[in-house]
Every structure is written in C-alpha cells, then in structure tokens.
C-alpha cells in the first residue's frame, strides 16, 4: 500500500523547514498517524517536510519555571522520563498507554497533540496539566493554551506554514498530584481510549484548592471538564465528593457513538474513569 507521490524535504534547521512549508505540505515527525493516513490516501500532501533531522527538538528539559517537551520527543521517552514522572505523572501514564511498543518508539508527544485524534491519550493529560503549545513559523513563535490549540476533531490551531515546536508544562508544586486512566479499545490500557480521563488536583490542609480534569475518547476532541473541576474544588476529596463531581464527566461534551460503544455506555464509562483518575490523583498526593 503506497501513498501518492510527494516531494520529500529533510531540512536540518528550522529556517530551512519553514522555507519548505506551504499550503500543500505536512510536517512529518514520528509519522504514526500521518503515514497510515497517506497510505490509505485519506491525505495526500504535495510535500512532506521531515523535521526528524533538525537538531535540538528531541529533548525534555527543565526550563526553570516550566518543563519543555520538544517536537521530536517520542512517546517512549515521555513515558519514562524522570522530569515527566515528577512534574506530570498523568502525562507519563498516558504516554505509556499510547499505542504499543513500536508506536511509542516512533510517535511523538507533540504529534499526538497536533493530530487531535478524538481518542488520543496524551492530549487529555496535557490539558489537565495546563499545558501550553509553542507554535513556530518564519515570522516567530506564539503560545496557545493546549485547550484552545485542540480546536476540533483532527483540527489544531496550526497553519500549514507552522510547526508545533514544543509543549510547555507547569512544574509541579507541593500538594499537587495527577493521574490518567482509561479503557482501551482492546481492553485494559491497550489501543486508543474508548474513554480516558486525566485529572490534576491540588490540595491544601485536607481540601481541594484547584483541579483540572480532561476527557478523551467519548466526544469530538480531548477537552477540559470545568464542571468537574468546580465540583471538586472546596471538597475534602472523599470518595463521595469525587463520585459526585464525576457525575459531571460529560457536561458540555457531545458524546459520540462509535464501533466501541453507544452514547449511554460511553457516558457511563466517562463517569467511571473520571472517578478513578481523580481518586488516583488524590491518592498520589496523600501517598
């Protein structure tokens, strides 16, 4: 199964990459979503700009006030990196549950965010952690909150002449915890999420002072659930408080039926996994 013909460019600098990008181009990093789409001829870009040979894009770094994940950081690196384990455990867990071993060795965390698959794991964790997308083009860089960056199904706030250069995550402070949990399409944690929830929670003196909860798999895109967060804030994080907040797990979400479940089933799963992820996040603070 061959894609249609295309021109291939392998720049070794960002300036060169920006020069090669145009209306009929796509950026190739890990290619785990792009290449199958091209092989099925759902997508046939005229030019592929392979950023895989540009130095400096493959690092996870502590930048002082935030953690930076570069455009070429693979899922396997995100899953196992000590800085992500420390500052964004939900993202480490989501990256470890993305695809399979071979996919995690090639696919990139930034690519997962830029692709905005309705059932991708890592965007939910990036949203729950309050991540920021740093977008570059020939005219400079701009920062977009990850929630706004994920505009709609398979649609990011990214023009054809732009590259998602990095994801920035706030560093973890005292009393904060996070977790991701999901039901995969092949059961357990395998494959895309039928329903997945990432939760980030901050506690002080036994009560929840801040929270962000994000869902994936059930709706039109990975998205934040402000009603769940509001229901959590001010509570003691007890099982009943979490269960009652999790009842809001599809508030504002257009739940879609697909091969993996009815609207009713996915709504049920969303609440179950919201409860589990929030409880895991709280448990990680108390541990």
């Amino acid at each position, binding site marked *: *199964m*061959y*894609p*249609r*013909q*295309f*021109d*291939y460019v*392998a720049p070794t600098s960002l300036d060169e990459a920006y020069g090669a990008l145009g209306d009929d181009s796509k950026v*190739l990093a890990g*290619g*785990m979503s792009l*290449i*199958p789409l091209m*092989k*099925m001829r759902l997508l046939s870009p005229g030019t*592929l700009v*392979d950023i*895989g040979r540009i130095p400096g894009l493959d690092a996870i770094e502590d930048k002082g006030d935030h953690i930076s994940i570069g455009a070429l950081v693979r899922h*396997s690196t995100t899953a196992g990196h000590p800085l992500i384990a420390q500052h964004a455990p939900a993202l480490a867990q989501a990256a470890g549950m993305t*695809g*399979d*071993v*071979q*996919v995690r*060795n*090639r696919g990139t965390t930034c690519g997962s965010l830029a692709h905005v698959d309705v059932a991708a794991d890592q965007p939910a964790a990036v949203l729950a952690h309050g991540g920021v997308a740093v977008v570059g083009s020939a005219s400079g860089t701009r920062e977009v909150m990850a929630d706004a960056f994920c505009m709609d199904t398979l649609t990011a706030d990214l023009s054809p002449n732009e590259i998602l250069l990095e994801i920035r995550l706030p560093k973890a402070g005292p009393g904060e915890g996070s977790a991701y949990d999901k039901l995969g399409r092949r059961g357990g944690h*395998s494959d895309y999420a039928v329903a997945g929830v990432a939760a980030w929670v901050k506690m002080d003196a036994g009560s929840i002072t801040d929270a962000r909860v994000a869902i994936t798999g059930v709706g039109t895109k990975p998205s934040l659930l402000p009603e769940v967060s509001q229901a959590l804030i001010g509570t003691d994080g007890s099982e009943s408080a979490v269960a009652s907040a999790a009842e809001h797990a599809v508030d504002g979400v257009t739940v879609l039926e697909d091969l993996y479940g009815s609207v009713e089933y996915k709504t049920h799963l969303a609440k179950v996994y919201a409860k589990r992820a929030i409880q895991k996040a709280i448990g990680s603070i108390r541990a």
Partner: protein
Amino acid sequence: MTVNGQPVSAEVEPRTLLVHFLREDLRLTGTHVGCETGYCGACTVHVDGEPVKSCTMFAVQADGANVTTIEGIASNGDLHPVQEGFWERHGLQCGYCTPGMIMSSVALLSKNDRPSEEEIRHGIEGNLCRCTGYHNIVQAVQFAAARMRGEEPPAADWEGGE
C-alpha cells in the same frame, strides 16, 4: 543505511516504505507485510536498536540508520535464543507473525532479562498472532530469557512445567 551490519545504498522514491525497501530492493523477505496500517507488527524491525513497524516508516527516514531484520539476528548459523525458543516451544503455527514477534521479543529481552508473563504479553502487544493464542509464544520467550541468562529453560507446560 546499515542493514544487518552491511552498509547499503540506493536511490528510492520518497514514498518507498522501509519494509518494501528491505523486501524488494534488498531481497530480505523475512520481514513480512501484514495489515499495512500499523496494527499487526509483522513488519517489525529494529532501527538503531529499537523495534519499529517498517510499514509505517519511509525508507528515506532510515537514511543513515542501523537496521536489523530477522535475517540479522542469528550468528554464524546458530539460531538466536529467541528463535530457538520459538522452535522448542512451538511458538508459531502459520509463521506469518513470527519474524515480527521474534524482533519484538529480542527487544523486550534486551531491556528486561527476566520478564514476567504479564511483561511478555505487554511487550508483544504490538504484534498480533491469529493462530497460537499467544500461549506458546509466551513460553518461547520464557525459554529464550532463561537461555540468555545462562540458565536451564523451564519445562514446557505440556512437559509438566507451569
């Protein structure tokens, strides 16, 4: 790129997938083409030591890389312990998934020399087998793990092992 230790060089169309370059240009047909969509893992090879799906990577992306295929893991005619394990523990029936399954297993054992059954099943989750139900594949990997640690492999379950 270097394939199984041999430097190779060719001009290819950008859309040439790594698996087709290996099979059609280099005639290394041990790597199989299965589902073509990145699910089945029959096309698994190692690129710079890590298992990847060669049907979901363009050959040009592997320019300069070190590629190992199923043809490259035996040494001087001696089967790799994982190959021996699949042989001894009947880890295959039709054999279609086997090259990819072995490449994933070799990679798993290079990171974890004593994997539990669960870790083996997790380590080969990117490789689908429609014949065996994975049972004997797990035993094959356990056999290889013991052999690579220099220990006597556990008896197969049909021989009274676990």
